[in-house]
Structure formats: structure tokens, C-alpha cells
């Protein structure tokens, strides 16, 4: 077959590169999107990418602590989603816009 032979085990670096790619995509979405909800979803994507790194290192060191940290990140993300979406609701109620450039009271 012309394709190179696959290794029997996945190298740890592939997981870390996947995590870096997902994190960079999250940063790109955070910077370029204009909808508050989509920006918020990009933050969730970044948190997920970091979780993947935690779990991959937990496998590498054969310790359960990485899983605990991933669990805490999930809990904090859940709390953050509840509060953040409440803030988005309030912003929309007061200004009836979700465009991120139109919410600029603190700018001036």
C-alpha cells in the first residue's frame, strides 16, 4: 500500500497537537466572531481543548489527578455557562442586540 504504515500506538504528541489545534480554533472564533453567543461557545471550545491535554497527560503519567482537574474544569464551565448566559439575557433585554461591537459602554 502506498500510504505509510500506521504505528500500533497513538503517540502522545498527536493528542497534544489536536488539543493545540482545537485551542487555536477557539481563539480564532473568539477573536473573529461578532455574536456574543458564538464568542461564548468559542470559550467552551478552548476549555474542552485544555481538558483533552489534561486527560492525555493523565494517561502518560498514569495518575488520576489529570482527570480530577478535567472534572473541575467541567464544573467551573457549567457555572460559567449559567452566569454568562444570564448576562447575555440581561444585555439583550436592555439593548436588544447581540452584536459584540454595539455593546461598548465601557469603551468611552
Amino acid at each position: 500500500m502506498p500510504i505509510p504504515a500506521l504505528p500500533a500506538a497513538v503517540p502522545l504528541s498527536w493528542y497534544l497537537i489536536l488539543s493545540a489545534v482545537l485551542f487555536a480554533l477557539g481563539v480564532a472564533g473568539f477573536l473573529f466572531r461578532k455574536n456574543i453567543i458564538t464568542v461564548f461557545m468559542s470559550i467552551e471550545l478552548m476549555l474542552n481543548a485544555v481538558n483533552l491535554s489534561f486527560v492525555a497527560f493523565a494517561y502518560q503519567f498514569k495518575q488520576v489527578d489529570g482527570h480530577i482537574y478535567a472534572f473541575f474544569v467541567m464544573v467551573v464551565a457549567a457555572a460559567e455557562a449559567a452566569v454568562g448566559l444570564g448576562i447575555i439575557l440581561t444585555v439583550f433585554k436592555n439593548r436588544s442586540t447581540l452584536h459584540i461591537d454595539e455593546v461598548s459602554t465601557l469603551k468611552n
Partner: protein
Amino acid sequence: MPPIDPILFFIFAGIAVLSAISLVVQKHPISSALSLVGVMGALAVLYLLLGAEFIAAAQLIVYAGAIMVLFIFTIMLLNAGSEHGRSRSRVARYLGIPLFMAFIGLMSYLIQSRLPATKGVVFGGFTQAGGLEIGRSLFTHYLLPFEVTSLLILIAILGAVVLARKEI
């Protein structure tokens, strides 16, 4: 017989990356939210490959279940339409994708060159992370952070209730 671990990794890593790209480029928030569900499902399978059953289940229940329902509920409640295309800066339009690729390439090179050679990840290579071990660690070594977490969630609930009230 080709090895199954890299094949599964490539399938689900591909799903994760394609869904993440779709999250960034879709115009409508609902499409982005469904792409995020795809990312989270693919990451749950990768967690299973890494021997993290508890985290995989929590990922599906907490992220793909609770948090995404919250997002989609908010999108539908606010009737969020597609973004009206406001032109972004010319620097971002022409340099964004090349700089992104350069950053990915740099990160891959650094990770590949600096990480010491290890044995690699096979399914079943790390089985000491079931619910028993996580529970034991959570309730002995990490008991204080766990209890503080409950306080954090209580404050978050109060904050969400206050923010979502009628008059504010």
C-alpha cells in the same frame, strides 16, 4: 490487520477538527451550537480511548447535555439570527488564515521536537482511572476543592437567578 487505535484516533480527531472549523465559520448561532455538540461527542470518544470513562460520561452528560441545552435554549429564547456581515479589517482577512497555519505548524514542531519519546497511547493501557479511583481521590486528597466547588455552584445559581430577573 491495521492497528485500530490510530484509525479511531484519526476518525474522531477529524470529526472534532472539522466540527470546530464549522463552529468558527458558520454564520448562524444554532449551526455553531450543533457543531460544538459534534466536537464534544468526538472528544468523549477520545477520552474513552485514553482510558477516562468517568470523564467521557461526564463530558456527554454535563457538556453535550446540560450546557448545550442551555446554549440552544438561550439562542432560541433571544431569537438570534445570522450575523449581518460587517467587514472585518483587511489585516485579519488576508493574514488570519496564514498566521493561524503558521501558529499550528510552530506548535506541532515544538511539541514533536521537545516531547521525549514515550510508548504511546493504546486503549486499555491505563485502567486505574475508573469511578472508584476518581471518587477516592476526590473525597480524600481533593476534598477541599470539591467542597469549594459546591459553594461556587451555589453562587453561580444565585447569580443566574438575580441576572435573569424581570427588573434589573
